[in-house]
Every structure is written in C-alpha cells, then in structure tokens.
C-alpha cells in the first residue's frame, strides 16, 4: 500500500483554489435555466401589463384572445385569489381589482408560439378607472396621499414587521436610544442634510426565466434562474394552496442575481399559467425591457440625517428619517427598511440615536433586495455627513472615524455589544494605501484631484431563524459529493463549499463535487442565497455534515483496527492511525464497509453525513425603541478609499485608484474574497457615477442599455486594491463571515467625499454624472 504523505498536505482553507465552475463557464458547457430543452410540448407565456401606475380594474375581456388559434390558456387575477410575499403578503400573482405600477401583471397567456401569445395579449381588453398615483415617498406618508393598499391591515405579516393600516406605510421601524433631544445642546457641531438616492436596477446578464409544468395530479415543477428555490417552493405553494411537497423547484447556476432573483418575482406567473395547461411546460422569459421595470428594482430613498459631536469630535447624537420609495408591493422591501433602521448609526458608537425608517408604498416598480440591502443607500448620505461633521469640528476625517468607529465591545445602536471586529484596522489600511493626507498633483492643468474615504457595516438581514442544511456522501472512488441548497450566483459559493467540505472531511479539494443543479426534491434545505450568509451559515452546515461522515468512517475503522477514534485521522483521502501507523484509503471502505476478520461478516456501509445550522440566539427588538439583546447574527465591517480626478472642462470623473479593506473573519479563498471586493467596488462605482432609473409619472424612461449606463471594463480604475482583515467570527466556519454585498456599500460616499475634496461640491444624490458635476461647478462659480 502506498504511503500517504501526511506532512505536506496543506488545508484547502485559505488557499486560492481554482473555481470549481471555472471550466464549465469558460468553455460554455455550463447549463443555465434557459438552456433546458422541452421539445414540442413547450408553450410560451406572455404577460399583459398595466400601462397605468395606479388604477382600478373595471373589466377584463379575454373572449377574443381565447378564440385565437394556438392560444392554450389565458389567466387573470380572478383565477388566483391567494396572496404572496416574503415578509408581508401584499401581492397577488395577477392583479385583482387594482393595478399599482406600470408593468403590474393583469393577465397571462400561454400559446404555441411567442408570436401568437403576443397577438393574444393585444386582443385582451382591459377597462380601467385611473387613480391618482403616489410618486414620491414623502407624499406617500402624507394624509393627502391616496391609499395604495387599503387592505394593509388584513395582510399576513412577519412578527418583526410593523405596518400602519390606513396609511401607505408598510413598515415603521424605530430606534429610541438615549435621549437625542437633550444631546443637541451638548454638541459643538451639528450637521443636517437631506439625500435622495434614485432607483437602480440589478441588470444581471441573464434575464429572469421560469419554466413551469403542472402534472395531472397537480404536482408542480418549476425550472428557473433563482437565488431562492426553497423560498419559491414555500411561497408559491402557499399562494396556490398546494402542499410544499407538491412544488418542486429545479435551479441551475445563475447568470447574475445581485438580489433580483431572490424571493419570488415573476416565477409565480409561469406556475399560475401552467395550472391551466396541465402536462405542458410553460416558459416565461423576461426581455431586457421587462427586466428593467417588472423584476425587482433597488428602492429609492429620501433620507434626512442630523448628526452632532462634542468639541473633541465624539459623536453624541444621530437623528434620522428614512422614507423608502418601496414601490407597489413591499413584501421584501419592508425588511430593507428594518435593516437600515437597526444599522442607522452607521459603524459608529453613538450614545443617543433616534431613527424613523418608513417603508412607503408608491406606484413605482417593485422594490426588492439588491446587493447591500439598503446599506449602500443609507451609507451614501451618512458617510458624507461624517466628513462634513469632521470638517466642521476641524478634525481630519480619518481621525474622526478612528475615534468614533465601532470597536470590539462598543455599544451598538440596538443596545447590544459589538462582537470582535477589525474595523479599526480596515480604516488604517485604506488610509495608508490611498496616501491619506497627501495631495498628488493632477495629470493636467484642467483637472483637480481628490481623495475620499468611507466606512461601512452590514449584518445579514434575514429572519432570526434562517436555516441551512447539507449532506455529504462518498462514491466508490472516494470522491465526495456535497449536497447544498445554496445557489452559485457567480459569487463562488460552490468553490468555497468544496474547500470547506474537503477540509472538514480530510480529502483533497480536487475530489469534491457539488450536487447540482439545486433541486428542492433532492437538495438539502437552504433559506435563500441572500444576505451574504452562505459561507457562514451553509458553511457551518457543510462542516457539520462532513464531520458527521468523518465520525461514521472513523468509527468503522477504529472498530476494525481495535483502536479509538482519537488515534485516527483522515488526511488526503486516507484514514491513518497515529498509533499503529496503519492506513486505508477512503475508497476502500466508504461504500462496502470493511470485512470482519475470518470471513465473519462486515461492518459499516455507504457513508452519508448530514447536518444543519440555524442561528438560535437572535432576539426580537422592542417595537417602540428598537432595543434588544441581539438584533442580528453579526456585522461585517470594512472601509474603502478612492482617489479621483475631476475634469473641469467636462465634469467627468475618473477614478484613479480604489482601495478596499474588509474584515471577513477568515478568507476561505483569498483571491475570491478580493474579487468580491473588486467587483463590489466596480458595481458601487457604477451606481455612484452612472446608474439611475429615470422615472416619470411612474414610467421608466430608460429601460435599455442605451440609456441605462453601467460601468464597462474600460471604466474600471487601473489601480484597484483589496486587503483582507481577519478577526474571527466566533460561530463562523474557521471564523468566516460574509463579504459578497459589503464591498459596494461604502463606494458612493467614498466617491462623493473625494469629489468634495477635489472641487468642493456636494450633491443631493448619485449618480454623479459628468453633466451634474459640471453644472454644479459652474453654478458654484468654480468654472466659467
């Protein structure tokens, strides 16, 4: 038997392993939802959508459309009375009685071709009574505003969401910590600002797609591009009044999600239509145009900040009001409102905080989760106020942040204590890397340079008991098959999952496979691929499952060798004994077990390890004060700094350098962690400089890439640096916590602060387009 070299086996943890999905993606072999083939029985769905932002449906006449040859089904809201929604069930699958945004689904058609489906749509007649729309969240909370959801009081809602029936407020989250009112007089400097953050869209390369089939007995199969196969199983089944076990979701890898494919958005439409054409798969594929206004968008925000500090620069009080322009349905957005509330101090220790965060119904596209989950929007204003306050009190902005930022043991805005955090190191690192305090000369006389910096914090925003599970099984050749329910959306989670499973069991990374596609019938449960929670939560489940398998293997071997488990280890796919120096490869025992000596039978059998993870320690918050023992599982913290140049002739901003440092607890795959930091920086930069859904009367004016600009590779700064800080998470696998979303949280304010440093202008909100910058400089008299 060959001897395993146990000395030089590095753990795959902390190694830059090649992505497990790299080859398939690069060669084009990877299968996405739209690639599934269904043959001739496939029907094509199209959706009749409201052209009005707010109206009552008086009549829908589908007679003519039904008569069109090739049309197999037409459905309307009448067919589906059930509500749907993640935290607040405020949505019908198809509108009933009322339409609430331009794009609201009114009817659905399935036909033998897309052309016929489209023709049928045009033949559906809808009579509406147009109502006054709500197009601004501040107007939305006023008593003058028309009610968008008169039935709000009857909706099913999660216990931690607090709607105000009889208003357009679907959640009002409050923080009342200390005594803000009496703190102001102790302040030596106070800053008061208002910001307006526009709606943007996730624009994943792969648009939403769902194919649904209902069999004769009512069982539903849904194939889709999804971050949330299990949440879709649960929510769609509930809404349709079927058993969760009759709802199967098959979800291959996702071509970009950024939150837009979390929860349920368009998938229920395909399922609903498919119930009327049993046995035939029905496909709904959004066009790019639909993607821009009928899938989730990032909510708009109107934010008021008041902040004060004493003469030494210590933050004394923060008072915020957030009006989230959450759109027509806020089933998901209500929790963004809550998350921004319990994070509303920013990553600072502030003794007195008063926050009112309102989730407001408007007749705008439906707000949903997007990378950062409210944090980029909130930090955009907050981190500019910090700069302004430092300036007012005469302190350096970095010194001000170092003084006030969260440290291990700081008292948080919700009253609990901060866990060990590397935020102070992150500030140091980015300040050093950007050359803080040193002004470099511009590249041309008509250019001005500036540097800016911002901090961030963010917790996974989720129900307190969002769970993960995992299994591992071994094949005849000793390879490890890992079952997970979390989704690969480009973030690299399958790679990290394989690294962790390999390390926990004791096999090489190269002998791990991930059981894909995610299939709710075979894959273990996972709440959702959101909140940057998988490395931590699913990772814990994987480690436990691998350890479960490991225990099973070692028990069999220990018994066979008459040793104890403590004498044994599994290294590089081989069970070894420290005591007897015996060894046996896993492949020799993981399926067939081991024979007892003298042909006296067998022991062991096929090995399958299983486990789960669910946080059990998150407590509720007082609805009046937002105070509680432990609001969230943990906070990832970090900092970014930029150096940029403003062209005085055009207003164009060129980001010269971007620096990120985040405390990820432990980088399982450092290169991928850095890639997350870089990718987040670029997406944050894109939202800072270019991106805005131009809404007019509830209609998106720029639903195409011609006029919705996103950063291209040419716009990425040449000098992009990422630094990893590792202060371990006590309940994270190897100490890891999430990083996916965090990296775009501080980018907008870092850029805004750098623009101010360069040319001394500030804006109500992004995007800081060349035109906006130029005209502001002109209005300020900085240029002719």
């Amino acid at each position, binding site marked *: 038997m060959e001897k395993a070299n146990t000395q030089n086996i590095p753990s795959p943890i902390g190694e830059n392993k090649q992505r497990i999905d790299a080859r398939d993606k690069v060669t084009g072999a990877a299968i996405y939802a739209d690639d599934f083939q269904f043959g001739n029985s496939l029907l094509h769905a199209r959706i009749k959508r409201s052209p009005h932002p707010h109206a009552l449906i008086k009549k829908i006449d589908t007679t003519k459309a039904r008569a069109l040859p090739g049309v197999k089904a037409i459905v309307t809201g009448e067919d589906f009375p059930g509500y749907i929604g993640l935290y607040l069930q405020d949505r019908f699958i198809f509108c009933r009685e009322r339409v609430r945004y331009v794009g609201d689904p009114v009817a659905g058609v399935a036909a033998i071709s897309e052309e016929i489906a489209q023709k049928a749509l045009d033949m559906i007649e809808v009579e509406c009574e147009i109502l006054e729309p709500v197009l601004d969240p501040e107007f939305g909370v006023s008593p003058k505003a028309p009610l968008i959801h008169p039935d709000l009081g009857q909706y099913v809602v999660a216990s931690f969401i607090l709607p105000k029936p009889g208003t357009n407020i679907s959640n009002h989250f409050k923080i009342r910590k200390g005594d803000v009112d009496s703190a102001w007089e102790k302040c030596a400097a106070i800053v008061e600002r208002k910001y307006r953050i526009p709606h943007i869209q996730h624009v994943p390369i792969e648009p939403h797609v769902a194919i649904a089939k209902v069999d004769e007995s009512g069982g539903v199969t849904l194939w889709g591009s999804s971050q949330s196969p299990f949440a879709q199983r649960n929510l769609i089944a509930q809404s349709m009044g079927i058993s969760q076990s009759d709802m199967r979701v098959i979800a291959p890898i996702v071509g970009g999600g950024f939150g837009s494919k979390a929860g349920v958005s368009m998938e229920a439409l395909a399922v609903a239509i498919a119930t009327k054409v049993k046995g035939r798969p029905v496909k709904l594929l959004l*066009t790019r*145009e639909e993607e821009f206004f009928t899938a989730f968008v990032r909510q708009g925000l109107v934010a008021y900040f008041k902040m004060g500090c004493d003469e030494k620069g210590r933050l004394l009080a923060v008072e915020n009001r957030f009006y989230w322009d959450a759109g027509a349905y806020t089933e998901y957005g209500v929790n963004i409102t809550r998350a921004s509330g319990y994070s509303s101090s920013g990553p600072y220790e502030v003794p007195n905080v008063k926050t009112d965060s309102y989730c407001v119904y408007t007749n705008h596209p439906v707000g949903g989760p997007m990378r950062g989950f409210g944090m980029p929007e909130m930090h955009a204003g907050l981190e500019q106020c910090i700069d302004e306050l430092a300036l007012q009190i005469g302190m350096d902005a970095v010194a001000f942040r170092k003084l006030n930022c969260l440290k291990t043991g700081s008292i948080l805005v919700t009253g609990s204590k901060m866990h060990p955090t590397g935020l102070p190191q992150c500030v140091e690192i980015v300040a050093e890397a950007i050359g803080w305090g040193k002004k470099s000369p511009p590249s041309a006389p008509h250019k001005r340079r500036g540097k800016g910096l911002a901090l961030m914090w963010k917790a996974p925003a989720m129900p307190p008991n969002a769970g993960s599970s995992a299994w591992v099984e071994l094949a005849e050749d000793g390879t490890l098959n890992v079952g997970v329910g979390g989704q690969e959306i480009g973030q690299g989670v399958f790679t990290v999952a394989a690294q962790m499973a390999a390390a926990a069991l004791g096999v090489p990374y190269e002998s791990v496979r991930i059981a894909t596609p995610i299939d709710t019938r075979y894959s273990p449960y996972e709440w959702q691929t959101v909140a940057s929670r998988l490395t931590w939560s699913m990772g814990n489940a994987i480690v436990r499952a691998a350890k479960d398998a490991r225990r099973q293997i070692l028990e069999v071997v220990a018994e066979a060798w008459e040793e104890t488990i403590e004498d044994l280890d599994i290294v590089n796919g081989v069970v070894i004994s420290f005591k007897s120096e015996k060894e046996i490869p896993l492949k020799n025992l993981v399926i067939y077990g081991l024979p007892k000596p003298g042909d006296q039978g067998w022991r062991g059998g096929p090995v399958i390890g299983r486990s789960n993870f669910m946080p059990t320690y998150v407590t509720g918050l007082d609805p009046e004060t937002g105070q509680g023992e432990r609001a969230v599982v943990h906070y990832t913290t970090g900092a970014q700094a930029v150096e940029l140049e403003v062209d005085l002739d*055009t207003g164009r901003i060129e980001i010269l350098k971007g620096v990120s440092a985040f405390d990820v607890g432990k980088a399982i795959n450092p290169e991928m962690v850095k890639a997350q930091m870089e990718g987040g920086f670029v997406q944050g930069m894109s939202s800072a400089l270019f991106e805005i859904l131009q809404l*007019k009367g509830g209609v998106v*004016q720029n639903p195409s890439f011609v006029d919705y600009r996103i*950063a291209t590779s040419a716009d990425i700064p040449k000098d992009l640096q990422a630094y990893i800080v590792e202060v371990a998470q006590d309940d994270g696998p190897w100490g890891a916590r999430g990083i996916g979303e965090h990296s775009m949280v501080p980018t907008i304010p870092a850029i805004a602060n750098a623009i101010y440093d360069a040319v001394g202008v500030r804006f109500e909100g992004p995007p800081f387009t060349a*035109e906006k910058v*130029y*005209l502001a400089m002109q209005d300020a008299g900085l240029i002719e």
Partner: protein
Amino acid sequence: MTINTHPTLPEFEYVRPETLAEASEFLTRYPGEARPFLGGTDIFVRMRDGLITPNFLVDVKKLDGTNDLRFEPQAGLTLGAAVNMNRVIASREVQAHYPLLAEACRSVASYQLRTRATVVGNICNASPAGDTIGACLVFNGVLHIHEVNGLRQEPLAEFFLGPGKTTLKPGDIVTAIHLPLPPKGCAGVYLKLGRNKLSDLSLVGVTALGHPDPSLPSGYRFRLALASVAPVPLVPTQAETYLANQPITPETIREAAHLAAEACAPIDDLRGSARYRKEMVRNLSAKALSEVWEKLK
C-alpha cells in the same frame, strides 16, 4: 409613454441583387418599402423598436466596388459602402493619411459592432450623433451614389436634411464615400463625450482639422464638425471663418469655440441637457482646436 416590453424584429424579405442596376431597379419598384442594407447595426435596432418597418432589405454588400478600400496617391481615399469600421481602422493607408477617420471609427460602439458597422452606413443613417460623419465632412467627403439612371456624386456637406433624413431618393444606393487627398500638413482630432468610457452614443462629438493655408489671413484653415447638437451633423462655419481671418492664439481659439457653441441648437433629452451640451461644444471645440494647433505650430 408606454414601454414596448417585447420589441421584435418584424418580418421582412431579404433581397440580394447581383448588380447595382438590379438593386436600384428593385428599390425604385418598392419606394418606401425597400431599403438598402449594410451592416445592420442601426437598421435592425430601429426595426426591432418599430420605428421603421421596411418590407424588403436590399443587401448591397456584395455589389460592384462596395467592398473596396482604395487609396490613390493622386486622388485620395475611396471607401466602399460595405467596408466595415474595423477594416478602416486597420488600414495602413487610412492610418497614414487619414488618422482622424480611424480615430473616429475607434470611438464607435464596441469592437464586435465595428465588425458590422460601416462608415457609409453611419452616414446614411443620418443620425446627428454619427461619430464618423465629422471626419468625412472636414475632409470634404463626396458620396458616390448609384441611381436608376447611372451614377452621381454628391458632396457630403449637402447630404443631410434632418434626423434620419437625407437627399437620397428611392433607388439611390450610396456605393462609396470618397475623401480627397488630405490637405498638406494637416492635423486632426475627434473628441467624443459619452456618459461612460465605452460604447455610448456621443452626448457631444467635436471633430477638428487644421492645416496651413497661406492664402488665408491667419495662415491656417481650421475645419470643425459637431455631433449631437443639432438636427444634422453641424459645421459651424462662423467659427471656421473667424479662425481663417484671425491670428491663431488661445484667445481666438476660445472665441471660435464660443462661436461654435452659438451655432448649435441642442435639445434636452435623456442623455443630457441642452445647456450642458452647449457648454461642452464650447469646451471641447476649444480643446480640439488647441490640440490641433499644438500639432500644427
């Protein structure tokens, strides 16, 4: 405004005639229904969006001479209608004699699209934003047009009538753009302002060309062409005339840039405001003229 959620390419017939005469004849037979067709980078998008609905697309890419890129030392450059922009960019003759044209082509869309897009198509599309039109204007380009009754030549400067509107009549096929020999000692620059660095339409585009001309009081002739600031690609002649008659100094360049801005009539749209565009014409014209002047003096 309502949003068309499913823009689709309508049905049409693809026609590929064997000769120019046949092509012109076909186009004349179906006026308003048939259109000549080059790279398709604009026409397909506009058909998909329902802006135009031709029943026939007449492919002229294989017809006589449309694939030629020919430089004659005595006569200049003849660029066939079907020559794509990447070929223009890669051409040594273009690089040697008309680098401004190559620069303008490089600013268009992306590499992939430039494999389809053509300079003549850019011209015939007659968008005020056309990035390559300015270079052709300042080089005094002349269009070669095949019509039912034969051939005619038409100066590019007289070609544009409005957004998407030209002097072309049914049956007309632009077979090439001819650029005379560049003026001796000339230097040019194209400044494109997009919202981001790559693949945007120009918010404002400024083409400038200058060369020594002893017959003029200033001793230099400057040409300017402006994109996206008027219903047609605009040549601000007042600015050109001014520089012909004044000594070239930073001050006179600024004044010429001011005159260029005064000459344009931009609109407010999703991409930018009229105010900003006018400012950018002034600043980018000044910049372009200065850069050219630096190369000349």
